[in-house]
């Protein structure tokens, strides 16, 4: 049946009034049940403690920069695993007296699980974890919480010490290995140096400088040689063109030359002029004079000949230029030979250097490699030495408990558990349920009771008009009775409330 909210409210109010005894008794019974439940509800105490945890692996700072440490597992999970691990749990079971009855292995497992379920480990901030343990026994809650905290710290310190020791051992071993490597590298280097003296840094540069110098020298000498050869060729040509001796010119020859010259001039003039031309005549006379002169000269020479006197030819003399050239030629040939010898020597030197360089390169590459290995090994070795010393200090600190990063921040305290309902919650819940349960019951009855409780339900269901809705007519006697009844019910409700209040106070004062 469709009902509007105000109709529901009105109907429920009227029904509550109609079934007032039922409502009040339900209220009382619900309250009593809930209060009883509150009283009998097992008490629960929670012990809690906080621990500062710096769970960074000792390897990490020690090996920083040298090696990458594996990621530390989730801190809480780790802490949880340690705390709820078998070793701590067994100690807790022992010390808390759970093992007094000598439980079997499976019973112990059950105890483990129970304690695990009652223990919560929560992170507070970055480095603090909070351990909480719930128990019905106040003292035991405190004891177990304390035990958890102490055993955890102890366990973690032990673990850390062993971590540090392991780290030290590892670094020490590494350092030794590197020391051996370094020694081997040094030895190899020494051997290489002794077998290959040239093999030293910069040899190749020197070699190439020398080669360049030699090549330059060869080039220069070759050029000089060319020059000398050209000079030589030139001198030879000059020597061939020059007579060994020179002939001096005679007077008769000079006359003849003059006659020929004049004759030529005369022939030219005759082509133009007659023989009678003064110029021709003059020329003819000149020619005659000259011929006469020449003849006189010849005669004088011929007259000198019959004396048979070994008379040297006064016109033939040695040529001085020729002599000079011969000398220079000889000099040039000497120069060429010298230069050729010098070039051959330079070439031999170059070859020698090249041969030496071949051996030098192989040795040097090896040297570089060995030197590099040596340097790297030396660096790592030195670094490891530093780290080993730091690890040694860490061990000392651990043994003195100086570096302990596990500390109990808040000592264990015990308080009533938060999650278990408090008595006042029962009281409040009882009151609320005491109201809601009867109202819910009445509402359900309205919906499902086959007996008619709402007038509009009749008209809706039977399609018959409701002629009148007659309320109960209260007679004076009935009204008096109703007043008494209501007073009694109010008294019952008040008594229930008083009971709740009294129990709350008693409980608050810790008397119950």
């Amino acid at each position: 049946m469709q009902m509007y909210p105000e109709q529901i409210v009105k109907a429920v109010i009227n029904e509550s009034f109609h079934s007032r005894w039922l409502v009040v008794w339900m209220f009382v019974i619900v309250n009593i049940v809930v209060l009883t439940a509150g009283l009998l509800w097992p008490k629960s105490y929670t012990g809690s403690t906080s621990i500062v945890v710096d769970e960074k692996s000792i390897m990490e700072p020690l090996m920083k920069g040298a090696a990458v440490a594996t990621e530390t597992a989730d801190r809480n999970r780790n802490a949880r695993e340690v705390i709820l691990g078998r070793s701590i749990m067994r100690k807790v079971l022992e010390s808390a007296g759970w093992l007094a009855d000598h439980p079997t292995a499976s019973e112990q497992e059950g105890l483990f699980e129970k304690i695990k379920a009652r223990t919560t480990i929560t992170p507070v901030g970055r480095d603090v974890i909070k351990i909480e343990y719930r128990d019905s026994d106040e003292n035991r809650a405190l004891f177990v919480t304390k035990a958890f905290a102490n055993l955890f710290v102890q366990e973690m310190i032990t673990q850390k010490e062993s971590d540090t020791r392991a780290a030290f051992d590892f670094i020490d071993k590494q350092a030794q290995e590197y020391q051996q490597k370094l020694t081997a590298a040094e030895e190899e280097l020494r051997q290489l140096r002794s077998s290959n003296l040239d093999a030293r840094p910069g040899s190749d540069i020197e070699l190439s400088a020398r080669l360049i110098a030699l090549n330059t020298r060869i080039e220069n000498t070759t050029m000089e040689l060319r020059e000398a050869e050209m000079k030589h060729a030139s001198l030879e040509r000059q020597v061939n063109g020059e007579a060994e001796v020179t002939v001096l010119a005679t007077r008769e020859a000079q006359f003849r030359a003059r006659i020929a010259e004049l004759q030529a001039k005369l022939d030219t003039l005759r082509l133009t002029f007659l023989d009678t031309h003064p110029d021709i005549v003059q020329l003819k006379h000149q020619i005659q004079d000259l011929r006469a002169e020449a003849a006189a000269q010849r005669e004088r020479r011929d007259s000198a000949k019959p004396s048979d006197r070994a008379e040297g030819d006064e016109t033939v003399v040695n040529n001085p230029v020729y002599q000079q050239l011969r000398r220079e030629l000889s000099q040039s040939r000497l120069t060429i030979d010298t230069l050729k010898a010098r070039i051959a020597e330079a070439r031999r030197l170059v070859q020698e250097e090249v041969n030496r360089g071949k051996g030098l390169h192989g040795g040097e590459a090896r040297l570089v490699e060995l030197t590099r290995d040596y340097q790297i090994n030396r660096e790592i070795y030195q670094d490891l030495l530093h780290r080993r010393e730091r690890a040694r200090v860490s061990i000392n600190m651990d043994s003195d408990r100086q570096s302990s990063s596990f500390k109990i921040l808040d000592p264990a305290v015990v308080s009533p558990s938060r999650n278990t309902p408090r008595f006042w919650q029962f009281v409040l819940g009882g009151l609320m349920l005491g109201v809601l349960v009867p109202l819910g019951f009445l509402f359900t009855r309205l919906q499902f009771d086959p007996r008619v409780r709402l007038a509009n339900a009749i008209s809706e269901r039977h399609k018959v008009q409701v002629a009148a809705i007659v309320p109960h007519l209260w007679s004076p006697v009935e009204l008096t009775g109703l007043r008494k009844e209501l007073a009694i019910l109010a008294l019952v409700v008040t008594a229930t409330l008083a009971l709740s209040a009294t129990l709350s106070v008693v409980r608050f004062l810790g008397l119950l």
Partner: protein
Amino acid sequence: MSKIEKALKRAGEERGNLQVVAPAAAGGRTAPWTALVGQEIERPETISRMAENEHKLLSAEELWVRGIIHPQQTKEPAVQVFRELRTKISQQSQGQNAVILVAAVSRGNGASFIARNLAAAFAFDSAKTALLVDCNLRNPSVHELIPDTSLPGLADYFDSPELAVSKIIHPVGIARLRAIATGRLRENPAEYFVSTKMRHLIDSLRERYRERFIILDGPPMSDIADARILSELSDYVLVVARHGRTTNAQIENGLSAISSSKLLGIVFNDEPRIPWLR
């Protein structure tokens, strides 16, 4: 003599059958509803005669104790409800008197309470009278209203042919309301209603006084035979269902016994309400 009374007297002389009745004669009350002029005009002679016979009327308090409404209980919601029901029936019957059967769906639904209060509501109106007839032979209740329980009732009327109808009609201490109790019952009263005498009785009661509304306090509908016969005798039927007691199945059964043309509707009785929260 007031102007109204003079006018009435003049009108009476013209019609010949009207008379002015002093307010004291109309149940000794001067309540406003009795002073309505129209009602005074139509007030028949019988009503004034009934008033003369009503020597001792019950007070509002006394009626309240008996579970009967009184017009003075203006704050009582039930009074309003019965007035409205009465008006509805009057409208339905178009001013004519009628025989109304009030029958519960099942026993204990409070049909007698409804019947007697409906009768009382009709009697509020000074222009009408009401007759409550107890037809619930197995569980009679009307006799409680009659001061002398030894007076003859319905059973006596059926059993003694010489007994006049007027002898079984008794005043109940409420103005304009008379009642017929069941009387001294014989062993097998079941056949009374099927007799023609019953039909004659109803007809005569209806015909004799035109302003009289006859309310039959009927047996529960679970007694289908009686309920069916009585519904045939009556003009209208009111079916009473009670809060928290009547089931839908019972209502369905009850409704199947009566003709839908006569059914005025269902009266939902005893709806719980906090008395101080009007």
